[in-house]
C-alpha cells in the first residue's frame, strides 16, 4: 500500500509539472534579455519596462477590465431577475423548458456562439465594436449567473416570505429585505464567474469585435501569430499573479459561504431542539 501511494505521488508530481512547466517557462523568460524563448541570456526588468511603456497594450488591458466589470454587472442583474422568475414559475414543465433554454449557451461551442452572434448583429444592423462585444459578453454570462443564484432561491424557506407578508411587508420590501439578502452569496458567486468568463473569452470576442476594438485575448492572439515577443511573457507573469489572486478570493468567498451556511444549519438545529 505504501509503495502504491508513493507511485501515486510520483504520478501527481508529474502531472503538476506538466501543468505548470509551460507557465513557469513563460514567466522565466520574461526576465531574460534577447528576443527569443530559447536560451536565457541575462537577467533584466527591461521586458516589464517595455510593457508599462506600451500604451496601446495598457489601454487594451484597461478596456478588457472595464468590459469584464460592466458585462458581469449587467449579466448579474439580468440573471438574478431571471433566476427569480424561473423560481417563481409554478408549472414544472415550463420551468424545465426555461432551464433548458438557459443552458443552451452553456453547452454550445464558442465558435457557434461567436458566428451566430455575428449574424445577429449584422442582421440588426449593429456596428461591430465595444457595443457588440459587450452585448455578447453579457449574453454568454447570464446563464452561469442563473445557475449560481437559482439554488440559493430554492434553498429559501417559503415560510420566511409568508411571514414577511403577514407582518405587512410590501412586495418590494420582501424582495429587498428578505429575498435579496438571503441570495446574496449566490449573486456574488455569479458575478465572479461572469467576470472570469468575460476575461477568459477569446473565440466569441474574436468573431464580434470588428477592427476598432480589441480585448487582451484578441491582442495576444494577433501578436502570437507574429512570433515571440518577451513583452508578452512579462504580461503573462502579471496575469498569472492576477489569476492567483482571483482564485484565492474565490476560494475565500466559498469558504466563508460554507461557514455561514454551516452556522445557519447549526442554529436551525439548535432552535428546533
Amino acid at each position, binding site marked *: 500500500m505504501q509503495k502504491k*501511494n508513493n507511485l*501515486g*505521488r510520483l*504520478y*501527481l508530481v508529474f*502531472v503538476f509539472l506538466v*501543468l505548470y512547466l*509551460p*507557465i513557469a*517557462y*513563460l514567466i522565466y*523568460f520574461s526576465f531574460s534579455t534577447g528576443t*527569443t*524563448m*530559447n536560451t536565457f541570456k541575462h537577467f533584466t526588468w527591461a521586458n516589464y519596462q517595455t510593457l508599462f511603456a506600451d500604451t496601446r497594450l495598457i489601454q487594451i488591458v484597461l478596456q478588457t477590465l472595464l468590459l469584464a466589470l460592466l458585462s458581469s454587472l449587467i449579466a448579474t*442583474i*439580468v*440573471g438574478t*431577475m*431571471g433566476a*427569480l*422568475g424561473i423560481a*417563481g414559475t409554478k408549472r414544472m414543465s415550463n420551468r424545465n423548458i426555461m432551464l433548458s*433554454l438557459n*443552458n*443552451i449557451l452553456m*453547452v*454550445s*461551442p*464558442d*465558435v*457557434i456562439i*461567436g*458566428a*451566430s452572434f455575428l*449574424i*445577429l448583429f449584422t442582421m440588426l444592423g449593429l456596428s461591430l465594436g465595444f457595443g457588440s462585444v459587450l452585448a455578447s459578453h453579457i*449574453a454568454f454570462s*447570464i446563464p452561469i449567473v*442563473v*445557475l449560481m443564484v437559482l439554488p440559493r432561491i430554492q434553498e429559501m424557506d417559503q415560510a420566511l416570505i409568508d411571514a414577511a407578508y403577514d407582518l405587512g411587508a410590501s*412586495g418590494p420590501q420582501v424582495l429587498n429585505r428578505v429575498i435579496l439578502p438571503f441570495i446574496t452569496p449566490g449573486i456574488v*458567486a455569479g458575478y*465572479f464567474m461572469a467576470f*472570469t468568463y468575460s476575461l*477568459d473569452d*477569446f*473565440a466569441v470576442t474574436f*468573431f464580434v469585435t470588428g477592427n476598432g476594438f480589441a480585448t487582451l*485575448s484578441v491582442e*495576444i*492572439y494577433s501578436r*502570437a*501569430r507574429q512570433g*515571440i515577443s518577451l513583452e508578452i511573457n512579462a*504580461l*503573462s507573469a502579471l496575469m498569472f499573479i492576477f489569476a*492567483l489572486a482571483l*482564485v484565492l478570493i474565490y*476560494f475565500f468567498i466559498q469558504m466563508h459561504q460554507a461557514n455561514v451556511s454551516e452556522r445557519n444549519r447549526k442554529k436551525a438545529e439548535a432552535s428546533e431542539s
Partner: protein
Amino acid sequence: MSNTAKRIYYIPYMLWIVLFVIAPVALIIYQSFFNLDHQFTLANYATYFTSSTYLMMTLNSFWYALIITVATVLISYPAALFLNQLKHKNLWLLLIILPTWINLLLKAYAFIGIFGQHGSVNQFLGFIGIGPKQILFTDFSFIFVATYIEIPFMILPIYNAIAEIDPALLAASRDLGATNWQTLTRVLLPLTRKGIVAGVQAVFIPSLSLFMLTRLIGGNRVITLGTAIEEHFLTTMNWGMGSTIGVVLIVMMFLSMAVTGERHHKRKEIGTGAKEK
C-alpha cells in the same frame, strides 16, 4: 407581490432568451440555406455532403477530438484517483484548477516557444543526440497542447465522482478478496461513470472547435470544424457555408450528448465544481 409585478422583472431575462438564445440558433440555421449571392438554396448542404474535402475534414476533426478526449481521460483518471488520497485535497484540487484561469492564448503562446525550431524540446533532443525535429505545426503538437489545456476540465468531474464514493465500498471489495484490478474495473469505474461522462462532454465538443490552437500550434495543417467555421465567417466571408458547418457541429453536439446520457454544464463551471466538494 402581484403576479404582474413579478412578470415585469422577468422581462429582461425573457428578452435575452429570445434575442440571444433562440434567435442566434434560428439565424445560423436560416443562414445555412443561403449562398454567397443571398439566394435561398440547398447547395451548401449538397456541397458539404458530396465534397470529400469537407467530409474528410469532419472525419479528421472528429478523430482528433477523439484522440484528445481519450488521452485526457487516460491521464486524468489516475490523477483524480491519487488526488483523492491526499491530505488537503481541496488545496491540491485548487492547484489543478489554477492553470485554467490563465488565459488560453498565453498557454498556447508558451508552447510556440517550447516546441519552436530552437526551443527547449529541440535543444534537449539535440543534447541527447537525436537532433532537432519539426515539432511545432504538426498534428502531434496540436494534440499535445489541446490535451494539456483540457486536462483540468477532465480531472475535476472525475475527482468529484470519486470523492462521492463511500470508502467502505472499496474496503468491502478488498475484504471479499477482489484484486486491485477487479476493484478498479468492477467497483471504481462503474461508480465513477457519471464523472467520466461529464468530463468527456466537457472536453469532446470544445476539441472540435479549438480554432485558435490549429492556427497557432497546428500551423494550419490541422483543420477542425471550428477552424473551418472561422475561415468561412472571417476570411472567405462565405457565411452560408460557415453556417452549414455550424449546423453540422450543433447536430454533432446533440448526438454526443444523446450518446453520453444526460447533459452536464460545460467546462467553465470549474469554479463551481471546486466548491461543490
